[in-house]
């Protein structure tokens, strides 16, 4: 740390609060910082400039890009994504991303600049009440009132963000704090008596769950993202295979169990498979591991697993019994609970008929699609993406039809390779998330599947992939429409396509090229395989504008208000 303060004669050098922040980040093991400068964080950017800290700063072109990139980074690395933005508009530009991270339990530590403590509350230039604004959308938030608190707060923030049920933590740093000089070494020990997540399951509840399994004739596992956060995929696989339990995933849980394993029924929920949804409907024991019974999963609650005893393993007690009444609650880290279950002697009755029935459903009612006379079939396109990347890519998506097709047609055999915005359904997420994912996993193929609508919300981040030569492959599933909106209008609003079909779209090739990024257009199925192969092998970023048939809909579908067994668009 090169600090220009020659007055420091004492043992410790006199440094600024900003220098101290950088030191603390280095100690916390931060290697990537996603940010954007401005007045209130000038001291921090100056400290960064002067420092030889071994982390990269990734300059986005809009703070929303920073926070989504940090989410993508967190999703694939399991580490906290770190964001830095200035006060006022810089901070408010982060709101969508912070909310997204809160909904999908992603660990983020977000630093915002703030006006000086002395003027907080006076509507000073670029002041915003970021504490008030972010209270409902963070796991916790801090405003630093004294420099001496700063290192401890930063440590606490990382601890809170990454433990228990992960989530975003905001640290608001007034400018006078980052400018203040000090040579003192501050206390960093912390004590959070009100925050002690339970990780070990209550043994009695494990016994109950084991007993329930011992009596079940139609057991089913529903695995969510909690399995990913607790790194419990190996234990889950062992448990599922030991008792030959049929299993389904939530949208966010994809990859927690191998997608090509015969016991896997596909994704459940609004656009889940017939086999998975009917499995839930008919099960007599549903074991939810790390999912929150979101309404896009359950459909009409009245018809959700009507005959099942429900067991729910979750590290967040407040999720248990929130939407679905639970017979066997288990508050625990998924990995700990699965380990205990693996240690239990369970005398599983034979459930061959059940397994066969589900297998038969899986075979008889597969996902299907039609080949359009013109342009590409989007589902077929996603199948090619899957094939050509050998099922080994990290896939990020935006929100809409293309997201559901990616979830349906890309089978993830490994965890933490699927990055999507589930809870908030944030358009604009997919592309910047791919940037963060690529930075977190530099040697992996990262494919960003986006819609022509959502890509335009954050396309300016093309600057980053050019600047850093990040070999992200952007696959635009271009239907020249807000496809998912168009589909709902077709199905539920009598084909009144109100503001959902674009009259104009940019030339995405030229757009990419204007940023220095290679752009390719595909509008014939014959060109798909060779072009994708070429693009995926290319050592640099590529934007591939894939023209797909606009009228294609996502099926099956549980229409709003309907039960999980009332899917439309199911075909033999």
């Amino acid at each position: 740390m090169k600090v220009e303060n020659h007055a420091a004669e004492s043992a410790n050098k006199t440094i600024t609060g900003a220098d101290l922040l950088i030191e603390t980040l280095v100690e916390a093991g931060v290697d990537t910082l996603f940010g954007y400068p401005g007045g209130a964080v000038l001291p921090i950017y100056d400290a960064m400039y002067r420092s030889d800290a071994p982390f990269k700063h990734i300059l986005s072109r809009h703070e929303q890009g920073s926070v989504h990139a940090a989410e993508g980074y967190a999703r694939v690395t399991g580490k906290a994504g770190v964001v830095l933005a200035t006060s006022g508009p810089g901070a408010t530009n982060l709101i969508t991303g912070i909310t997204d991270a809160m909904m999908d339990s992603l660990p983020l530590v977000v630093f915002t600049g703030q006006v000086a403590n002395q003027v907080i509350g006076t509507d000073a230039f670029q002041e915003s009440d970021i504490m008030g604004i972010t209270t409902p959308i963070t796991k916790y938030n801090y405003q630093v009132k004294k420099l001496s608190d700063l290192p401890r707060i930063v440590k606490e923030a990382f601890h809170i963000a990454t433990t228990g049920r992960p989530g975003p933590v905001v640290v608001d740093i007034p400018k006078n704090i980052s400018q203040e000089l000090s040579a003192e070494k501050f206390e960093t020990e912390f004590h959070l008596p009100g925050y002690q997540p339970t990780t070990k399951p209550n043994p009695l509840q494990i016994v109950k769950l084991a007993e329930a399994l011992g009596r079940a004739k139609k057991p089913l596992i529903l695995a969510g993202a909690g399995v990913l956060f607790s790194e419990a995929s190996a234990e889950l696989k062992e448990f599922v295979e030991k008792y030959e339990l049929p299993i389904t995933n939530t949208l966010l849980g994809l990859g927690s169990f191998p997608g090509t394993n015969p016991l896997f029924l596909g994704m459940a929920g609004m656009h889940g498979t017939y086999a998975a949804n009917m499995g839930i409907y008919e099960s007599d024991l549903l074991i939810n591991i790390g999912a929150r019974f979101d309404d896009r999963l359950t459909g009409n609650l009245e018809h959700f697993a009507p005959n099942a005893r429900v067991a729910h393993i979750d590290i967040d007690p407040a999720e248990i019994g929130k939407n679905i009444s639970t017979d066997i609650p288990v508050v625990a880290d998924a990995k700990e609970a699965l380990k205990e279950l693996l240690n239990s002697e369970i005398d599983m009755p034979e459930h061959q008929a059940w397994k066969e029935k589900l297998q038969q459903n899986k075979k008889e009612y597969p996902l299907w699609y039609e080949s359009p006379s013109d342009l590409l079939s989007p589902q077929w396109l996603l199948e090619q993406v899957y094939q050509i990347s050998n099922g080994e890519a990290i896939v990020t998506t935006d929100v809409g039809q293309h997201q559901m097709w990616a979830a349906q047609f890309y089978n993830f055999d490994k965890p933490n390779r699927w990055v999507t915005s589930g809870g908030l359904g944030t358009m604009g997420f997919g592309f910047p998330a791919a940037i963060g994912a690529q930075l977190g996993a530099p040697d992996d193929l990262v494919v960003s599947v986006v819609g022509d609508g959502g890509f335009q919300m954050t396309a300016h981040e093309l600057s980053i992939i050019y600047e850093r030569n990040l070999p992200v492959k952007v696959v635009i599933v271009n239907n020249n429409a807000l496809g998912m909106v168009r589909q709902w209008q077709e199905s539920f609003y009598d084909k009144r396509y109100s503001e959902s079909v674009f009259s104009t779209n940019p030339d995405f090739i030229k757009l990419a090229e204007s940023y220095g990024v290679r752009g390719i257009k595909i509008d014939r199925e014959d060109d798909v395989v060779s072009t994708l192969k070429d693009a995926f092998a290319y050592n640099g970023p590529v934007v591939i504008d894939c023209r797909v048939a606009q009228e294609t809909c996502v099926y099956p579908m549980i229409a709003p208000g309907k039960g999980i067994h009332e899917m439309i668009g199911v075909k033999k």
Partner: protein
Amino acid sequence: MKRIITATVQDRAGVLNRITGMLYKRQFNIESISVGGSEVKGISKMTFVVEVSDDQKLEQLTKQLNKQIDVLKVSDITDKAMVARELALIKVASNAHLSAEIQGVIAPFRASVIDVSKDSLTIQVTGKPDKVDALINLLGTYGIKELARTGTTAFLRGQQPHVTEISSFSV
């Protein structure tokens, strides 16, 4: 059903905002909240009187409160041996004739007159919320000019009758 919930919380910046924001966001119906210091420095005590529709909602409420990082302990003390008190200040229309009559009305409530003017009396009453309600009702006939209530504050009695603790939401 009406429940009385107490919480001990760490006195960190924004804690009240965080808790009331959560209650608002999750649509809990709060009748009153009272907050103040406790016997331990840095720790505050909150008392909530809530109207919840069923046990499931109640369970959610206590869990969501417990989930807050600053919250140390949450108890539903409704069915326990406890003391719950509220203070109200009531300004009633009055005059020389009525004054004695009003004094007579408030006497059984052990309320006191703490301010007198030519056309009003201000009465202070402390007690269980239903006692406070009853007095307010009685004084209504004279015309209430102003009313301020603190909301209920409560805690457990020193001695609890012996019953086996049934924790309804054991997990």
